[in-house]
C-alpha cells in the first residue's frame, strides 16, 4: 500500500512546522515505516537529527530534497507507510505547490496570534486552489503553543471558524519540552515522564488523522 503523505506547511516562519513534523513522524513510526522529507532550505529537520547521540538516534530517517519534490515522494511512496514533508516557510517557490499535489493531508500549524492567523489566509486560498487538481487533498489547522489561561488562546476558536479549513480538535500546548527534545535530537516520546503530556498531544493528533 502506498505511503500516506502529510505535508506540514505555513508560509510564515516560526509556527512550529519542524517541531510538529519531527514529533508527528516519531509518533507515526510507532505505527509503520516513516520517512521525513526536509524540503525547507533551512534544513532544520536535518539539524535536529544531527543533534541526536549515536546511542539514541532519531527514530525516523530524514532526507533533504531540493529538486522535484513530487518525483521524490513518488520514489519513496512504495517503501514507506508514512511520509512527512517539512515544507519551507514560503509560497513563492514551487516546493509547497508540489507538496500539495503529492500529499494526502496538509497540516498547518498556527500560533494563537492575530498576525499568524492573518498570514494563514493566503495559504488557505492556495490550498483551495490545490484542491482543484488534487481532489483528495485534506487540510487541517493545528493550533500550536496554546496557552489555555491566555485570553487570546481561548479566543482562537471563534477566529478559526472564519477559515474554510477545519482545525484539529487536538493542538499543541506551549511546552518547554518541545524545545528541549530538539536540543537533544530526539522526540518528545523519548523524554520519559517530562515528555508524557506532549507525547499525548502528538498521539491525539495522529489518532484524529488516521
Amino acid at each position, binding site marked *: 500500500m502506498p505511503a500516506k503523505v502529510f505535508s506540514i506547511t505555513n508560509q510564515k516562519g516560526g509556527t512550529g512546522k519542524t517541531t510538529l513534523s519531527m514529533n508527528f513522524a516519531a509518533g507515526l513510526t510507532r505505527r509503520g515505516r516513516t520517512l521525513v522529507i526536509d524540503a525547507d532550505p533551512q534544513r532544520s529537520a536535518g539539524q535536529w537529527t544531527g543533534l541526536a547521540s549515536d546511542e539514541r538516534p532519531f527514530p525516523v530517517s530524514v532526507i533533504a530534497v531540493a529538486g522535484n519534490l513530487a518525483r521524490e515522494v513518488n520514489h519513496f511512496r512504495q517503501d514507506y507507510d508514512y511520509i512527512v514533508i517539512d515544507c519551507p516557510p514560503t509560497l513563492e517557490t514551487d516546493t509547497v505547490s508540489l507538496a500539495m499535489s503529492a500529499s494526502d493531508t496538509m497540516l498547518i500549524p498556527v500560533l494563537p496570534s492575530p498576525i499568524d492567523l492573518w498570514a494563514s*489566509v493566503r495559504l488557505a486560498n492556495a490550498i483551495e486552489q490545490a484542491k482543484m487538481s488534487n481532489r483528495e487533498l485534506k487540510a487541517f489547522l493545528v493550533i500550536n503553543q496554546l496557552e489555555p489561561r491566555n485570553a487570546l488562546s481561548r479566543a482562537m476558536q*471563534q*477566529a478559526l471558524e472564519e477559515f474554510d479549513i477545519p482545525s484539529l480538535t487536538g493542538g499543541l500546548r506551549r511546552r518547554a519540552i518541545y524545545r528541549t527534545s530538539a536540543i537533544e535530537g530526539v522526540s518528545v516520546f523519548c523524554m520519559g515522564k517530562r515528555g508524557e503530556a506532549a507525547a499525548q498531544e502528538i498521539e491525539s493528533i495522529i489518532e484524529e488523522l488516521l
Partner: protein
Amino acid sequence: MKQLGSKLADSVRQVKTQQAEKEGKEQKVQEDKTPEPILVSSRPEAPLPLFTSRRVWPD
C-alpha cells in the same frame, strides 16, 4: 473574552476581504497585460486590392 474572539474573527474576515480584493486586482492586471488578439476580418464586400505592376520587358 467573547469580545476578543469576535474582534479576532472580524480581523480575519477583513484580511480575507483584502486578500480577495488584492487577488482580483492582480488578476485584472494580468488580463490587461494579455495582448489583444489580432482580428483578421474578411470583408467580402471590399474590393480586392489592385496591384498594378508594370513590367518592362526588354525588347
